């Protein structure tokens, strides 16, 4: 066990491309934690999808042994946190597990909204924050300007900011020294009853559930019997250790230390982030503050394109859920799409990651229906229900009113795009809360309905600002509004998977946009097809897809029989991909594309 005074625990706060992983790699490498030859780029990010997107979902840690310039050995524990807003709660827990942060800002870019959100988590956790200006090797680097911006926007002293090029290695030594000398040592009492915070957990096919913990007080030993305070389960520690970054076994972990254990736990669901772990006997009585169970906020239907793959989908979802307690699912049937699952996610990124993993790792083509938020439906009889799926909307005559979730959105945007951003927020029923400037960039804060953001807000924002805006949000609560369910009818048949909740005032506009989009997306058939949007029985928008007039192969001779037959067989298979509806085939991409708005 290392003495508290020689431990430093820290995280790195950064925007996606600002070089967090490269810096982490550099720290690991320069201290000899990993031999050069074993170094692969972005050591800490292990899942493919995450690596491709440059995001980390699971918290990962590495223990670095560092001999400081004063000649003493220090144990530096770096926790790499998920950077994305969808995982805000996970981030806040990881932050509570360490005492300080390196705030990495790309010196060619400046502070981004995501950086801000995570800095606030760090400040909430009372972190000491050391600013690091990265990418100083690039010609576009503007350290002074960015330092000033950090002071303006975040309000912390940036005069001592360390100037680094994670790429070339400049400033790495200074960064390590700053971690030792500028960040506080953890506190803790090794004689107190055990108190450890569950920082994260994941499923490993060999080891079962691996739990990442920060020891607050007391000592955790191999073969200890421990209690999880949120669900009062008891487990026997059968493996204990630290990450360097490979697993290194240890007999015990003391206060201030960060490490992992396994205890024959089968499901990630039983290990909740933020939970307090104590000894079975003579344990702590008071849990650590701030624990809350994960709450999905965005729901959508996932259906296999090929209905015969439903069981494969079930299997894939079961497997993924093993490792992701925040992801919820239940079976759903749709008239248009057959059997599938209604799944709940922490946010849109979470949704995309899970969907991509199912498609990629399990090789199942999916139809994803419109993401929906959770509405609170207040019935006239005084009861309340949560609506996860617009298709389940109860009869309006029994509904008193509906509430929807709202968010506080923070957007940082260069001046010249401000007008477009304000318009976008206004169009999405936003209420401006704040507008300030930091240099040539504006920071706008809006109160927005989550419903208006879950779908394509981020895409739109990127496109109106040519990618220069950054965006982050947090949920603020529920608010009543004039919401209605809009149904889409194709060839006079309602398509449940396309129904959605909209604000009454925006229904006509959305309805018109949807029917126009569907008219483009549905291929012409041999008969004309009316496409309508309706609220209750009232049609609010209508288009007609005219009949196909020509589809015939001009030339077909003996030499073509085989080829043309195979082509037809292929089209038949393709037709399976197009969901048969009434007698109209709706291509799978229509279910999502139809919802994308051009404004």
């Amino acid at each position: 066990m290392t003495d508290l005074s020689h431990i430093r625990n820290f995280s790195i706060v950064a925007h996606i491309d600002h070089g967090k992983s490269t810096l982490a790699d550099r720290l690991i490498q320069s201290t000899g934690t990993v031999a050069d030859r074993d170094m692969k780029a972005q050591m800490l990010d292990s899942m493919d999808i995450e690596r491709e997107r440059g995001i980390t979902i699971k918290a990962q840690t590495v223990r670095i042994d560092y001999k400081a310039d004063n000649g003493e050995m220090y144990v530096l524990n770096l926790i790499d946190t998920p950077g994305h807003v969808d995982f805000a709660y996970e981030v806040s827990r990881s932050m509570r597990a360490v005492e300080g942060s390196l705030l990495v800002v790309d010196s060619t870019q400046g502070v981004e909204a995501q950086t801000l959100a995570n800095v606030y988590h760090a400040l909430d956790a009372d972190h000491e924050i050391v600013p690091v200006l990265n990418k100083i090797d690039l010609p576009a680097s503007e350290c002074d300007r960015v330092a000033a911006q950090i002071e303006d926007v975040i309000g912390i002293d940036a005069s001592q900011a360390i100037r680094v090029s994670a790429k070339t290695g400049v400033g790495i030594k200074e960064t390590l020294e700053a971690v030792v000398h500028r960040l506080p040592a953890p506190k803790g009492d090794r004689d107190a009853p055990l108190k450890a915070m569950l920082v994260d957990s994941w499923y490993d096919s060999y080891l079962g559930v691996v739990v990442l913990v920060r020891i607050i007080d007391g000592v955790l030993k191999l073969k200890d019997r421990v209690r999880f305070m949120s669900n009062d389960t008891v487990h026997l520690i059968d493996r204990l250790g630290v990450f360097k970054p490979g697993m290194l076994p240890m007999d015990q972990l003391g206060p201030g230390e960060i490490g992992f254990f396994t205890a024959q736990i089968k499901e990630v669901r039983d290990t909740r982030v933020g939970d307090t772990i104590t000894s079975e006997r003579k344990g702590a009585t008071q849990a650590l503050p701030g624990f809350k169970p994960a709450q999905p906020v965005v729901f959508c239907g996932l259906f296999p394109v090929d209905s015969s793959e439903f069981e494969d989908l079930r299997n894939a979802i079961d497997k993924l859920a093993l490792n992701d307690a925040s992801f919820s699912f239940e079976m759903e049937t749709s008239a248009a799409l057959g059997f599938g699952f209604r799944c709940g996610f922490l946010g849109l990124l979470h949704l995309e990651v899970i969907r991509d993993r199912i498609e990629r790792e399990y090789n199942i083509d999916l139809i994803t229906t419109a993401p929906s938020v959770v509405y609170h439906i207040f019935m006239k009889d005084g009861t309340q229900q949560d609506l996860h799926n617009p298709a389940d909307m109860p009869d309006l005559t029994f509904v008193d009113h509906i509430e929807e979730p709202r968010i506080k959105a923070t957007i940082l945007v260069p001046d010249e795009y401000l007008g477009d951003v304000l318009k976008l927020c206004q169009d999405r029923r936003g209420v401006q809360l704040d507008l300030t400037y930091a240099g040539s960039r504006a920071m706008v804060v809006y109160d927005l309905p989550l419903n208006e953001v879950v779908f394509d807000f981020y895409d739109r924002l990127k496109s109106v600002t040519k990618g220069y805006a950054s965006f982050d949000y947090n949920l603020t609560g529920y608010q009543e509004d004039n919401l209605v369910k809009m149904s889409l009818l194709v060839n006079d048949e309602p398509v449940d998977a396309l129904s959605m909740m909209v604000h009454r005032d925006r229904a006509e506009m959305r309805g018109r946009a949807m029917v126009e989009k569907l008219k483009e997306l549905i291929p012409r058939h041999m008969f004309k097809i009316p496409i309508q949007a309706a609220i209750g029985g009232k049609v609010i928008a209508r288009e007609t897809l005219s009949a196909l007039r020509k589809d015939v192969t001009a030339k077909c001779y003996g030499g073509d029989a085989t080829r043309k037959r195979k082509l037809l067989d292929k089209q038949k298979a393709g037709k399976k991909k197009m969901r048969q509806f009434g007698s109209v085939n709706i291509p799978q991409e229509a279910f999502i594309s139809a919802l994308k708005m051009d404004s």
Partner: protein
Amino acid sequence: MPDFIPADDWRSGGFGLYLHWPFCKAKCPYCDFNSHVVANIDEARWEAAYLSEIKRLAAQTEGRVLQSVFFGGGTPSMMSPDLVDSILRQIRASWPAANDIEITLEANPTSVEAGRFAGYRDAGVNRVSLGVQALNDGDLRRLGRMHSAQEAYTAFDIARSVFDRVSFDLIYARQDQSLADWKSELSQALSMAVDHLSLYQLTIEDGTVFGARAAAGHLSGLPSDDLGADLYLMTQDMCGAAGFDGYEVSNHARPGASSIHNRIYWQSGDYVGIGPGAQGRLTLDDTRWSTSTPLAPTTWLSQVERTGMGEDPRDIVSAGDHRTELLLMGLRLREGLDKARLAANGIDTDAKRIRDLIHLGFVADDAERLRVTDAGRPVLNGVLREILAD
């Protein structure tokens, strides 16, 4: 549906022979036929190979009455009349010929080839199909053709004086072609037509120059779906009015002058396929086989020379595949298919899908035959997908 369906009787569709000549003077930018441009062709080697293949296949289909021979390509009018003569001699020696046997040769309408027409006739060819493609020089150039309109007219006149039966091909729905342009060109074509016309809408095929240009967005002026449909309907009307009924999607003939050979394909008869890339269908011992040959001319040629067999391993055409082919090919014909034959092949012509199509006006309500109406023919692929949907 019964599990076992005896193979369809080849007699319901007839019996013919297709012989592929894989060479051309130049490669047209729209063409995805198995055609190649080479400097030298050793006709003697090709002759020997063709003759040997004819003998080999005749041995397997002995005694069948041959209704048609078709020299296709490529550009078979590059063959010398002597080569054609030698091939036809071997064919006549190998199978009994029907009294009205049709022997067609595809010819390009240049002066060089026209000079061989009489020789082909003397060898036994009794029908030519000329690849005229367009009747104006601008479009002929854009289609990459080696002949002018005037040359085509001259070749056509020679053909008409040599043969009783002359057909020619035109490609329409070309780049920047308006309804009015095609109307006048088609009137001109109809005024000179003898007994048969093939009118194909330009198809952009993968793997051709046009295909690559279209994929890169560099092929402008192609007709919209609607203009394509209007061009097609106008073509049917004008041909019908001139006495050339559209007996198939793209083929028009005076009464009784439709092509026997192509009917064998469309009626899913048996046909021997000889030459590089030629395909065949043969019903032997109650099994229907699909035959194919190596595509590359030299591969085919040397394989015949080395092994005495210019064929790939054969595939069985399953009952299901045969059902698809029957419909795919047969519904192209205006007269459609005999319902009794379809029933014998396990096709339910009273299925709901077909009744729906009758209701929509795309399939005719006919007790004897399953046939697509004039309204259904322009969307035949859609009709087929419906009928064949699982």
